[in-house]
């Protein structure tokens, strides 16, 4: 988040007789001033809800089953830890990309979006190995089903946001380039924080829910 986004809504609207002239208002704003932010927040609430429910299901099934993981070994930690490290680091270029968007600096935006996209690709690759390191199949039992769906849900968010990043990077090359596209880029970065933050509990559940 940048300072600029925290500037309170100053009101350049003025009275003209009994009318309120808003011609001078900006045609877009960042953070909670933009509708995109609210729509994004709604989507995060929905997906966050789904994650939360899935975690509840995980512990519900864990609670009623006498062996967890049933039969198999818990997932190997290696790729999970790599993913955790990479995704945490990826928050940094994401922050710069968001700043650049808020400053409406196309060059810097592109530059940082490239870095974000690179991180995204790496993460998708690591995610692939994570699935292979779960040591269980989705149809091996309730445990397998739960971890596969849990990891799958987060992968879905990961992949969609990476795809968005690519598309937005491409859009920065189109012209004319409307200022409100910077808001979209900033919001996409905001969504990436959501991907990072939701990974923390999901990582903990998948890798240590079967070890505790």
């Amino acid at each position, binding site marked *: 988040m940048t300072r600029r986004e925290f500037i309170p809504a100053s009101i350049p609207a*003025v009275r003209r007789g009994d009318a309120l002239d808003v011609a001078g208002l900006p045609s877009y704003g960042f953070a909670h001033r933009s509708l995109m932010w609210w729509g994004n927040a709604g989507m995060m609430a929905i997906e966050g809800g789904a994650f939360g429910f899935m975690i509840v299901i995980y512990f519900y099934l864990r609670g009623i089953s006498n062996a967890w993981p049933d039969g198999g070994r818990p997932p190997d930690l290696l790729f999970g830890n790599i993913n955790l490290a990479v995704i945490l680091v990826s928050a940094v270029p994401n922050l710069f990309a968001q700043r650049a968007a808020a400053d409406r600096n196309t060059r810097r935006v592109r530059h940082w979006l490239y870095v974000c996209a690179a991180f995204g690709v790496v993460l998708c690759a690591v995610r692939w190995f994570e699935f292979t390191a779960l040591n269980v199949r*989705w149809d091996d*039992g309730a445990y397998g089903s739960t971890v596969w769906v849990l990891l799958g849900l987060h992968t879905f968010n990961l992949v969609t946001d990476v795809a968005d990043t690519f598309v937005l990077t491409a859009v920065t090359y189109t012209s004319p380039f409307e200022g409100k596209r910077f808001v979209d880029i900033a919001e996409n970065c905001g969504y990436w924080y959501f991907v990072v933050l939701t990974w923390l509990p999901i990582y903990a559940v998948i890798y240590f829910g079967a070890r505790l």
Partner: protein
Amino acid sequence: MTAASGAFPSDAGSRTRARERSQPKKGGRQRLRDGAGAGSRAAAELERTWTDKPGVISFLSANGHKTIGLRFIVTALCFFGAAGVMGGLMRHQLATANSHLVGPDFYNQLFTMHGTTMMFLFAVPVMQGFALYLVPLMIGTRNTAFPRMTACAYWLYVIGGLLLFGAFLSNTGPDAGWFAYVPLAGPQYGIGKRVDVWNMLVTYSEATGLMVAVDITTTILKLRAPGMTLRHMPLFLWASLVTSVMIIFAMPMVMLAANLVQFDRMLGTHFFNPAEGGDALLWQHLFWFFGHPEVYFIFIPALGFISAVIPTFARRPMFGHDAIVLSLIATGFLSFGLWVHHMFATNVPELGKSFFTAMSFMIAIPTALQLFCWIATIASGRLVMKTPLLFVLGFFFILLIGGLTGIMLGSVPLDLQVHDTYFVVAHLHYVLIGGAVFPLFAAIFYWFPKVTGRVLSDRLGKWQFWLFFIGVNLTFFPLHILGLAGMPRRIYTYAPETGWGFLSFLSAAGQVINDLSMLLFAFNVARSLFKGERAPADPWGGGTLEWSVSSPPPACNFFALPVVSSREPLWTPPGNVTHVSGLSAEIREGLTTTVIDALPDTRYAYPAPEIWPFVASLAVTAWLVWSIWSVRGFAWGLILPAIAFFAWYWPDKKESIEEISWETEP
């Protein structure tokens, strides 16, 4: 009252600043801005900008909130009719013992389709349709926040509904009940593709509900007219807001759960398979955690209708406005703590059950509070005895019975006797018909003039009301007694010795009366559309903003966005600032305001109509249908929606140029 004038300083500095900002950037030609009232050149330009062009493509591309909202309402009413016919079929199958009108296979599909259609394809969409149509008019803006997403939601809803009925007509109708309990709906006992179709339909309708909910929430929070602080928001808006927020928290659950069942059926996962560590009861928890709030998605908007109709027809502001707002919010919260009272007969821990009993009793209090506030408003008002008010009074009578039987059902021990009997059927129909359908008709009679510019015949309306009132009670009251006499739900026939015949026959007779009243309504609508009396802007003397524009409203809703300084702007003298000016008349532009006190914040360019929402809905359909038929389709099908959504997002050069010329940097 003076909040408006106080909020907008009129100092020279800001005026000059504003003027130089408002200079166009490109090509010096002076831009046409709104502000002048109807009849001006700007007004004509606004109409042109907001009117959709004729033609199929633009029909599929339309994203105006009035168009989409109306489409939602009409489609939902069609599904209402279809589901009603199914209900009638069931009542006539049960009218006599050992009846052979339909067999068990078809009967199971019938009651599953009836419940699914009523809950997923009628009740929630029709309420959201009303919200889509009315919210922008009531908050004084020109469209909802995300019109294209809402258009996409509508197409998903229609296609999902058509797929469900297509499946039903080809003998693939879901047959495991609208609650689809596993294992009956699971991979082993849910034979064929029937339950897959149900899961898909749920995914569709919940996706629709969620998209619309996000749209309405954002619209109400960010697009209110300047001066419409939270305290000045009419109750209908509060109801819509609470409902939308509830939907955002409850619907992901059922979407997720339906997909888990689908995974069990399609991929061989074991969420609900006890032999492999799953649990059949888990589904009931997941389903009812959504399923109980679902009732309130239907009920709370209806309360909004009531709170909109009563003040107008009692000629006074609602008594206890703040109390009602608080009880709406309280109801929203409490409704998430009730789900286990659908599961008292299962072996969930006893202590938990008592807790849920207490919760179920507690939620009666906010509802009672609203009820008393309404009665107080009526008692202290001067009544206009028109059809909408009549339906509201019918609502009191029927909902009260439903609510009281609801309290009985909330008690664990009593529920163990009447659970899954016809007593529950009676209860839920009293609640949903009394709590949703009567207010719905009140709303239709109340807002029909605004939507169509014609008034529905009041005489026919009163006939319809009395037929419906008698019919509903005759159809559903006997079911209470049948429940006590031990008649279980969802049986396709019964033996004469059980002695359930007579009351079932009465119920079937009542159903016929309901059908008559519905036909009368259809006739009334058809007749009034062509030769109903013309409606002025404010035929009922209502006080909220939608009555300040002509009936039907202009395509742009308001030639100049209003500035409000009270809860019933049409009933109170205006503030010293009455309207907004300076928004573009050449592109679809609106005004965003701050969340709490509704100060002007930014100008907002609404997206122009596009075909992409429709294409995207087709792509999603392709994916979901494909996923029913093959596992690979579930993975690869995702590519189609991806393509569609990115094509949707990709900027359109002409549009960008136009918008940039209106752009002002923050």
